[in-house]
Structures are given as structure tokens and as C-alpha cells.
């Protein structure tokens, strides 16, 4: 009933006529405003971005990404794979402690991995870890992860936020780890006012360079305009998800600056390859030629994201950079439709989420208008997110707007999800036996260039058969007060404040 107490306090303050708090956050505190509150801070249960943003300041992984998308040591100082490619040995960093004082060692790593793998934990992301069949403690600071089959992308897999190392405290019954996380990271959990803010404080015993700021407040401000206003007035230091339409205003102010980063996320118009008439390649090609992605990017997204034709964002290591978008050519689209037996076009349905990614619904409306030009009559349906997901999973919707990100920066993760015929996110019903086989083969290929060559082939078939029309690669728009430096927005859609300074 903490909320009730606070409310009484607020009421009292109101009665006393206290004036609004002065805008301007304290020097040692960084206030970050984003749209959603976290659900859980237990990495083994984390599914959404707001949770990741907070959790990754508290928890660390064995391996992580640097600014250039390359793997770097974190809790493991080095790692190697055995000759049979089944045992991955990690040499752990010494002298690290969890926030509650327990030492970090091989046993802690073992417990953490076994926790997510244990069906009794009921982690919704058990499958992320399930390539690991056993965890072996070699000595105090050496641990081995063992797989049944060779799995080349293992180091990047363990950089996934779900595989962060949780403190042994997580095992204590009734620990409520989701609300009282205990990691090794540069910040410690301090307080959570549900629906309002989460506060972290600096970990004074951190093994690495200590952050300059003492506290971070992750504030929940769902309204786009409200976030921009809070930044302008100085109530917030950094904001996420700046609406593209407001960029000119922000850029014209000297008090704030815009932080624009690329992302590993592809926004696409999914096509169900099993539903008539989209089972015909020519119809899919026609649709691709009917859509003018550059005018979508310019008109709906103010020219911010990059566009291209490859299914994987070009910044991901190993992604094809040479696949252009299908040319906007309505005459060709009409011809292809006529060849396929639809000279007068046809009617179909497009499903879009609302407010899940940048201007999604507007995008759907703009696509609707473009498709009308070639005689494809699109009806838009915008069910709420839960229903959208269920319908997507049933794979019965002809057209849908969707996105795919990549949290680990390794193509294996998304190619398997999206392009494999058994892939969980292959909402396109795309079946290509050769692609399936290539995906399996690259998993066992430890040579990087060889692996990328195999992955490149899959991307080519995806491009040729257009199971989905790539619209653009999402951009991440943040904005900060101009005295704030060191905000690191990563292409895998995380943001780190560890290196932030306020001048």
C-alpha cells in the first residue's frame, strides 16, 4: 500500500500549496524518460525493451558487444572452443562481487545458467539457453558450456540479455528477484515506484571504471509530447522514442541535442505466401513494385531511416549490403498482376499494430494508398497488440506490418527465426528447403567468412522470392540535454548510461 501513503503525501503537499518542483535535475542524477514501465528485472523473464534497459545496468553477461558490434569480454576475460566444437571454455574475471557481497565465480555462472534451463523456473525464454546441454565448473574461475551439436554463434548467444548472470540471491525461495535484482553491474537497484520510475544507484564496489553519475532514474512517460516537453524544460536529461515529426523543433533548440542511431531492426510488410493470390511469386513482386519505399521513408518517417532491400539490416555483421529495394514501377506491377491473372487487381487485408514502432499505423495507411494505385484494394485492421500477435501466430492474415530486431547481432538468431520453415517468426509461411539446410549448416561452421557466405545465400533467396517486402531499417531517435555526454545507443536497441557525464 505504498502508493496510498504516497498519495496522502501528495494530497498534503497540495493542501499546503507547495509550488512545482524546479525543473533541472540534480547534477549526479540522470533522468531518462521512456514510454513504458518495466514488468520484471529478472533477466530470465525479460521480454520487453524497457526491462532490458534497466536490467543491463544491473546485470552483466559473460560476453558483450562493444560500440562497433564486435564481441568483447565482460564477466569472462577470454573464451575458447574445443576441437570437437562442443565445449566452450570461459575464463572468468576475478575479484568481482554481486551487489549483495557474494563473490562472482564459476559456481555462480553455473547456477545462473541452470536456473534458466530448469523447467521449474518456467522461464519464457528457456529456448534461448537450450542449445546448452550442460554447464561444468572447471575451477573457481573457469567454466565450460557444453552443447550437443556444434553451435558456432554461442559467444554471441550468451551476450543475449536473457542470459545475463543473475546473483545467487535468485535461488532463495521467495526472493522476489524480479523486484530485487542482484547483479554485478555498475549500478545497483534502489527503488521502484510502479508506473512511475525505477531508481538505480552507483555500485561503489564495481570492478570496472566507476560511472561518473551517482543515480539513474528510469521514468515512465507514455506520451510522446510529454517526453519532449520534459526534455525541453529540463525535467528529463535523456528521452527515448522521439517522434520524427518533432525533430525540427528539437534540432533548432540549443539546450537539447538529438541522438540518432541505426538499429538492427527491419520494418517490413509481411506477406503470407500460402494465401491466394500471394502464393504466386508474380503477385508478391507486383506488390513490391507498387510500394514506393523511398516516399514512405520521406513522407511518413521524415527521411530518417535508411532503406534497402535485404531482410537483414546492413549494419549487422554478415548482412548483405548490396540488395536494393524493389524499384517503384506501377506499370510493371500492373503487368505482373495481369500475368498472374489479376488485371483488375484484388482486395485483401493488412494488419498493423498501433504505436508499437515508429508511425506504424500511418505507414499502413500510406501503403494502402500506394497499393490502390495498382488496383490492390487493402482493408486495414488494427487489432490490439495481444490479438495482433495471436493472429500473426495463426498465420492466416494475408498482409501484415511487422518488424524483426536482433538483440545479439548474430545473423543466426534472426535467420533461424524468420527464414527457417520451422522458424517461430516465419509468419510468411515461406518454405525453402535449401534455406533450411543452409541455416543448419552454418551453425556448425566456425569459420566466420565461410559462415557469412552461407548466410548470404539465404538472404539472396529471401530477396528473390519476396516472402516479405522490406520497407526500411528502423532508426533509433533519442534526445538529450546538451550538457549530457556519453549516452551510448547500441544498434541492438539497448542504451547504456554507464559512461554518461553531466557538465
Amino acid at each position: 500500500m505504498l502508493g496510498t501513503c504516497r498519495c496522502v503525501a501528495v494530497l498534503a503537499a497540495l493542501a499546503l500549496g507547495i509550488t512545482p518542483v524546479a525543473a533541472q535535475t540534480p547534477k549526479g542524477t540522470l533522468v531518462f524518460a521512456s514510454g513504458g514501465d518495466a514488468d520484471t528485472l529478472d533477466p530470465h523473464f525479460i521480454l520487453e525493451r524497457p526491462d532490458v534497459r534497466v536490467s543491463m545496468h544491473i546485470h552483466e553477461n559473460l560476453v558483450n558487444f562493444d560500440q562497433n558490434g564486435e564481441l568483447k569480454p565482460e564477466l569472462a576475460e577470454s573464451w575458447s572452443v574445443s576441437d570437437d566444437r562442443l565445449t566452450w571454455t570461459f575464463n572468468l574475471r576475478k575479484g568481482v562481487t554481486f551487489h549483495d557481497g557474494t563473490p562472482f565465480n564459476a559456481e555462480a555462472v553455473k547456477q545462473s545458467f541452470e536456473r534458466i534451463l530448469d523447467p521449474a523456473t518456467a522461464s519464457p525464454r528457456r529456448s534461448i539457453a537450450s542449445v546448452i546441454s550442460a554447464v561444468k565448473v572447471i575451477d573457481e574461475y573457469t567454466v565450460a558450456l557444453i552443447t550437443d551439436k556444434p553451435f558456432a554463434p554461442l559467444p554471441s548467444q550468451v551476450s543475449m540479455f536473457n542470459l545475463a548472470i543473475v546473483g545467487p540471491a535468485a535461488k532463495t525461495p521467495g526472493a522476489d528477484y524480479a523486484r530485487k535484482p542482484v547483479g554485478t553491474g555498475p549500478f545497483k537497484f534502489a527503488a521502484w515506484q510502479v508506473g512511475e520510475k525505477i531508481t538505480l544507484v552507483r555500485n561503489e564496489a564495481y570492478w570496472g571504471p566507476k560511472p561518473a553519475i551517482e543515480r539513474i532514474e528510469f521514468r515512465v512517460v507514455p506520451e510522446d509530447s510529454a517526453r519532449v516537453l520534459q526534455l525541453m524544460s529540463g525535467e528529463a536529461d535523456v528521452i527515448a522514442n522521439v517522434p520524427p515529426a518533432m525533430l525540427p523543433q528539437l534540432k533548432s533548440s540549443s539546450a537539447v541535442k538529438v541522438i540518432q542511431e541505426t538499429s538492427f531492426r527491419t520494418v517490413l510488410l509481411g506477406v503470407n505466401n500460402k494465401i491466394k493470390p500471394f502464393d504466386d511469386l508474380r503477385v508478391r513482386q507486383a506488390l513490391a513494385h507498387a510500394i514506393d519505399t523511398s516516399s514512405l521513408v520521406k513522407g511518413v518517417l521524415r527521411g530518417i531511416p535508411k532503406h534497402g532491400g535485404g531482410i537483414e539490416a546492413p549494419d549487422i555483421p554478415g548482412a548483405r549490403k548490396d540488395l536494393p529495394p524493389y524499384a517503384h514501377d506501377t506499370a510493371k506491377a500492373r503487368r505482373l498482376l495481369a500475368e498472374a491473372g489479376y488485371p483488375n487487381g484484388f482486395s485483401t487485408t493488412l494488419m498493423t499494430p498501433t504505436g508499437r514502432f515508429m508511425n506504424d499505423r500511418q505507414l499502413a495507411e500510406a501503403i494502402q494508398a500506394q497499393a490502390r494505385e495498382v488496383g490492390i484494394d487493402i482493408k486495414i485492421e488494427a487489432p490490439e497488440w495481444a490479438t495482433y500477435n495471436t493472429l500473426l501466430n495463426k498465420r492466416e492474415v494475408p498482409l501484415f506490418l511487422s518488424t524483426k530486431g536482433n538483440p545479439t547481432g548474430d545473423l543466426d538468431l534472426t535467420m533461424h527465426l524468420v527464414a527457417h520453415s520451422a522458424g517461430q517468426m516465419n509468419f510468411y509461411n515461406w518454405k525453402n528447403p535449401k534455406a533450411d539446410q543452409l541455416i543448419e549448416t552454418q551453425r556448425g561452421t566456425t569459420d566466420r567468412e565461410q559462415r557469412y557466405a552461407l548466410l548470404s545465400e539465404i538472404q539472396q533467396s529471401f530477396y528473390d522470392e519476396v516472402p516479405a517486402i522490406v520497407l526500411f531499417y528502423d532508426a533509433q531517435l533519442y534526445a538529450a540535454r546538451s550538457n549530457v555526454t556519453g549516452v551510448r545507443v547500441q544498434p541492438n536497441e539497448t542504451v547504456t548510461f554507464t559512461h554518461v557525464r553531466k557538465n
Partner: protein
Amino acid sequence: MGTLLVRRLAALVPVILGVSVAVFLMLHAVPGDPAQIIAGQEASVEDVAQVRHSFGLDQPLAVQYARFLSRAVVGDFGTSFRTKRPVIDEIGDRYGYTLLLGAAAIAFAVAVGILVGVVAAVFKHSWVDNVCLLVSLVGVSVPNFFLGLLLMLGFSVWLQLFPLTGADTAWHVVLPAVTLGLPSAAVIARIMRSSLIEILGNDYIRTARAKGLPEWLVVGRHALRNALMPVVTVVGLQMGYLLGGAVIVETVFAWPGLGRLTVQAIAARDFPVVQAAVLVLAATFVLVNLLTDLVYSILDPRVTLS
């Protein structure tokens, strides 16, 4: 009266029970598998099955309801699918905010409503009265999401007097409370006016005037108290309205109350939270109605609680 009160309270039990069954059935008819939602798009089939099992969603409906009910009667509403916290804590965190917003809104509505109503009655049929009437008619015609946005635009964006959204300080409650309370203020003003005009026509008022009492004393001391009676009932009715309106206003102003929690929980298919939140809202609603009757029967002994 005590036994009557007990009887009225007892009559609420089947209503609340009915609400719980209705919510339960509705939730399970909703498309959107909670396990799939919680596990996310990229979850494997096994992950989803695992989640479904851990929520008990693989049990027959009747079993699920029986389990819910048997726990609910001892105050255990289970744990949230999303946050894994006890539902009772989730709701406890938010309920206070909704009560605060509701209380502030009703305080605003009563204060403004009575003031405007008295002014209109005292100056009845003059231009003042007409202006009051027009304003109060506009007051009930503005949808609260529009009013909320207008107030934000005026007071937060242009004048920068109040914060736009959130619930951090006392100032955050002002705009949502005004938004939520304005239509009720309009209703109260009108009822206050009619009631006061009726009272002012009574013999004892004429007597008071004949005695040479100044008009403000006549109104203030003799008429107002009696004229307030119908206002009490209306305030009770308005509280019910406020609970419904809070859902929208909380969403517009990002107020972390129960209404917004419920909307979010429905969207996330967080069944235990929806069940408990709707029950709490419904219980509040019927209890407020009962309370109104109670206050009314105390104020006016002729009215009984039956």
C-alpha cells in the same frame, strides 16, 4: 437501520459474484492467448507451453474459476502474469492514485458546482444565470479526453503552469482532476440551482426575508442546507461516473491509477490483474452507491435504507 445495512451489504454479494463470473468468462473468450503474449513472438512452442502450464491455463475453465474463487475469498488474487508480483500489491500500488484523483475531482466538482449553482439561483433569469447555464451545458458536452488535451495544450504547453503528465508532485493532480471533475461540476451546478430556487420559494424563506434578514444570510443559513439534499444524491451518482471516466483520464494524463492498470492488463491479457481490478472497481462502485443512500437517509430521516 443496522440490520438493514447488513441486508443491503449481503445483497451486494451475488452482484459481486456475478461480476466475477462475467469477467472470468469474458476474459477467456478474448482472442489472444496470454501464454503466447507473455512469451513473445520469438518464443518457441515449448516455451509457450511451459508458460501456459505455469499459469494453470491448461486446466479446464471450471477448475480455473473454482481455484480463483477459493483463493479470492481469503483475499489472495494470485500473481500477475506479467510482473509475477502478487496481484494484491499491483492493485494496492494503483488504487491509492485512483482514489486520490477521484477525491480531488469530486472536491473540485462540489466546490465549483455549488458555487456556480448558488450564483445562478440567486441571480435567476438574469444574464448571469444564462451564462451559468450555457457553461454547464458545454461542461457536459466536452468529452473528457478532448478536455484533457485542451487543458494540456493551454496550461502545460502554452502557459507552462502545470506538468503535462505523470504523478510525481501535487501539481500533477490538478489538470486530471479538473478534467475528470468538470462534467460533474456542471451537473451539480444545475441541480444546486433548481433545488435552491425551489427552496427559496418556500414559506419559511419568505418569513425569514420578512423578518428583514439580509439575502446572503437567508440563502446561507436557511436555504442552503436544505437545498443541498438533492446535491448529495447527485454527488453519489457522479462518483460512479468518475470511476468510469477515470479510465480515460488516467490514460490521457499517464496517471498510474487502477483504470489505466486495467486497460493495460486487458491489453496484455494479464488475467489475474484484470479480474481483481474489475472486482475492486465494481465493489467500489456499488459501495459508493450504498454509502450515498446511507448519507441520504441520515440527512433526511424520511428516507429509509430499504
